[in-house]
């Protein structure tokens, strides 16, 4: 019985790894249509960054939410990647509030928001408030 339990725990923990590494590809959505150009620009930039794989870009009039996953081998340089991206974004979009995160939770939430946006079953107001929630989650400290 004890051995069975250990096997179950092991299998479930290994499988839970799959959830983390399921590739979603590059996704981007806008809340305000005026930002279409912005997200294509950013998406291009992200595509050029070879260290990243899944990315989500969500743009509103005054704020940008970018979350991404770093390829495993480059995780040691996560800080550097974030710094480069942030510098570039600040330079390109000085008027916007930029939220940049490699956190898995932020990615998960952003991706859900992206799905809702792309299926268009969420109102502009709801989407904005959800985006705000994600941003506050990111800024939360331990």
């Amino acid at each position, binding site marked *: 019985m004890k051995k069975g339990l250990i096997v179950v725990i092991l299998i479930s*923990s290994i499988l839970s790894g799959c959830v983390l590494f399921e590739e979603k590809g590059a996704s981007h959505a806008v809340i305000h249509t005026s930002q279409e150009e912005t997200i294509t620009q950013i998406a291009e930039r992200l595509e050029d960054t070879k260290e990243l794989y899944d990315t989500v870009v969500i743009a509103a009039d005054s704020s940008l939410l970018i979350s991404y996953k770093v390829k495993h081998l480059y995780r040691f340089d996560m800080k550097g990647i974030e710094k480069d991206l942030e510098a570039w974004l600040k330079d390109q979009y000085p008027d916007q509030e930029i939220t940049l995160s490699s956190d898995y939770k932020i990615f998960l939430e952003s991706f859900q928001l992206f799905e809702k946006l792309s299926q268009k079953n969420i109102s502009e107001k709801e989407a904005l408030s959800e985006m705000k929630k994600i941003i506050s*989650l990111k800024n939360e400290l331990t």
Partner: protein
Amino acid sequence: MSQQKEPLFQAETSRHDKKRPLVKNCIKAFVVGGIICTIGQLVTVLLIIYFPFTEQTAGNPTVSIMVFLSMLLTGFGLYNKLGQFAGAGSAVPVTGFGNAVVSAAIEHRSEGLVLGVGGNIFKLAGSVIVYGVVSAFFLALIKTLLIQWGVL
């Protein structure tokens, strides 16, 4: 009076001494420690997916849950068996800390709640806390100084 300590018999004692099987213990510790950490990672992932925790904030609740699990195992009398098998593998992760606290608490329950449990609960884990805090203080001091001097 003659010298009571006889310094001889080094050969006899070392000939029959049984060494700890170092390589075997390392492998066991690696595997068991790894399994414990995998379970911890599973808890973190679950917390991230189902609760509003980010990778940053999921650490603390994960530690609490792992300590709680080791407390249960200690109470059921299983953790000491695991410890004998795994050695450092079960002592180094935070679960070992939980075990050290709870085992002392159980042991001294017979002396009452105040002097027994209260007084002895950190008998083993107390030094971890003391030296953890002391070394954290010095690390923070060094970091502050380096930042002040502009090294970092």
